[in-house]
């Protein structure tokens, strides 16, 4: 598959958030199966849905209308409170490829496209930090073929994103790219490339994209512990001064290491799989979605953010006790009626009438 051509066509040059699929699906596509075979039927339905949706989007006006509506929705949503740190566990690329009868590489590529779409959304909304679980340390257990595919895909995409991030005309301009994790486990060649790309986008201030490659949360915590101890030993940091925030600051996500507001995991598994343990266990929200990652749509993400922002409004109200009625009344009292409570001196009051007792008279 021609990777380069693909991405140029697909990406979102003119504020368009829906990828425009030019290339039809080929190779062995799922066939209509017997009605009794539920799984086969599901697979077939998924394939048909994807195919029809893509040909629908290929019509120019439809695409334009949809992206205009989407941009309007984002304009509305960014008026409310927003999470600062959102992270994604991008699960389901392989199942997606399998259900369309494509090679696994195809799934990962579609996943990368979905990621670009979501990051563009986040940037437009004004979310400051996005982190994604691209590759776990445990993923080295996968067949070497796939590991190589993933690694080369990362290298390709990094360049691609970095070019957009420094291009003023692109809607990814202002993005800062960081690749975090156990970097000693990847080849020197790739490491150099990553460092280079990171340097290219260092100026970006609008949004930071952390790509966790190869990463596990336990490894992150362990590193933080190790580095803290090292600081105590060689940099004369007193051991008694260590606390939660000091250890958090040693972690990979810079200032966002302490908390992640929202973790989204796709494709139905209800566990964290060694990601964001430290960041989400206090009071983060974890959203589990049944959708496979490449199918993760604008609207699904939109609803998740809308939900977050709705409940955050409610919580703000509860925590601050802010009330319109009270505020308005207080404002009116202070400014409209000049009614102020002044201290009263007893002696200044007029004298009471003469005291007469009935009992004393008799």
């Amino acid at each position, binding site marked *: 598959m021609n990777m380069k051509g693909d991405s140029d066509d697909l990406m979102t040059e003119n504020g368009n958030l829906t990828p425009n699929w030019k290339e039809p699906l080929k190779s062995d596509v799922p066939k209509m199966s017997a009605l009794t075979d539920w799984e086969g039927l599901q697979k077939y339905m998924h394939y048909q849905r994807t195919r029809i949706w893509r040909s629908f989007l290929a019509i120019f006006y439809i695409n334009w209308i949809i992206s205009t509506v989407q941009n309007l929705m984002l*304009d*509305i*949503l*960014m*008026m*409310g*409170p*927003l999470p600062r740190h959102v992270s994604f566990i991008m699960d389901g690329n392989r199942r997606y490829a399998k259900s369309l009868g494509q090679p696994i590489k195809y799934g990962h590529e579609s996943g990368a496209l979905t990621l670009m779409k979501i990051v563009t959304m986040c940037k437009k*909304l*004004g979310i400051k930090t996005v982190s994604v679980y691209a590759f*776990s340390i*445990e993923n*080295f*257990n*996968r067949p070497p073929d796939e590991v190589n595919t993933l690694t080369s895909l990362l290298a390709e995409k990094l360049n691609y994103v970095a070019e957009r991030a420094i291009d003023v005309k692109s809607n990814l301009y202002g993005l800062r790219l960081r690749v975090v994790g156990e970097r000693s486990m990847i080849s020197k060649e790739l490491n150099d490339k990553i460092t280079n790309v990171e340097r290219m986008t260092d100026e970006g201030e609008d949004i930071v994209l952390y790509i966790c490659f190869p990463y596990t*949360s*336990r490894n992150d*915590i*362990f590193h933080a*512990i*190790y580095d*803290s*101890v*090292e600081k*105590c*030993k060689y940099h004369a940091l007193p*051991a*008694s001064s*260590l606390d*939660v925030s000091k*250890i958090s600051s040693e972690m990979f996500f810079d200032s966002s290491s302490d908390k992640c507001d929202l973790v989204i995991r796709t494709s139905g*598994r*209800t*566990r*964290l*799989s*060694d990601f964001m*343990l*430290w960041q989400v*266990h*206090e*009071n*983060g*929200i*974890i959203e589990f979605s049944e959708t496979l990652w490449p199918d993760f749509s604008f609207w699904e993400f939109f609803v998740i953010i*809308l*939900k*977050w*922002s*709705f*409940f*955050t*409004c*409610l*919580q*703000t*109200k*509860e*925590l601050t006790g*802010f009330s319109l009625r009270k505020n308005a009344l207080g404002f009116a009292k202070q400014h409209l009626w000049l009614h102020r409570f002044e201290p009263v001196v007893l002696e200044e009051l007029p004298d009471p009438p003469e005291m007469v007792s009935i009992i004393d008279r008799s």
Partner: protein
Amino acid sequence: MDKIQERVLEATIADTDVGQGKQEHIPPPTNSKNNPAKPSLYNMTATAEIAMLKPSGNDAVEAKMKTSSSTWAKSSNKLEYLFYKTLLTILYMIYACVRYAKYQYNRTKIQILNLAYSPSNTPQLIRQDVLKFQKLPKRLATILEFKSEGDVGGGLGGLINDGSELVTWSISAGIKHLTLYDYDGHLKKNVDEFRKGIHHKLSKYYGPSNVPKFAIRIPQWNKVYFNLPGTAPSDPDSKKVALEVSLLSNRDGRETIVDLTKTMADLCVNNEMKLSDITMKLVDSELTQLVGPEPDLLLYFGPSLDLQGFPPWHIRLTEFYWEEDNDQVTYSVFIRGLKSYSTCKINVGK
């Protein structure tokens, strides 16, 4: 490396304060004190107020509002701002209506499930339910909540009741390890009452003459208790337990990791330990010793998942189960959690 463990334990044992009072737990937005997903007009007006009056979360919007120079641009900007804010409020209202409809649906579902699954104090029924599953979690963990005294099932009594019910169900299901987590450590602090509560509940299920034996471990203070308070521990049979319960609180989470770091830093500075001795394996084994092993399944009985500071090292591959909009510790959630675990597939990395 027993030295590390001893030193960390010194710190944690000395800390009789189990987390309460240090800092109030701020729940995630979806889990505020009064269930925010519960339909109420007040919630809707409150959201509308905040949506209209609080400034936007987006920096670009704020910047635009400030920089416009001419009066005309300013007022048109304000108008635009107001327009979008109104649309946002409308969007919230639509969302609220949908959510409230879903709440009603979920509640009805839970009511029906509660009718369908009822253990009615019979261990045989629970075992029968469990026998249908292909696998059970080896270690089960649950997060319990201390509800305010006025509520139904609230206060310490309610918490102990919930805890002892879970203990009874776990014993009946045949699970060997149960971890009970509550943020403020109320169960830890009232361990004697809790033991009585468990005994009472168990004798209801199994009859007072042959109550199953249990052990309660409090990792923070490195203590183990067997059965009822006051029973003779010399009896060798009393240590053959059907279930081991461990009680955790917020103190066992991040703070224990900090304590471990401090201790290792101390040892390293005094050259009692080399920096290269600190490995992932060591940290893992120390934390397993200090807090306990990682649970396989974590049940939460609140309306939407909130980990409440459950020890972060210990939720690596743990399956989560909760029932949306549920707010009680019920058998139906327990058994459905076990059911979902029995069908889950775990493939580490592959």
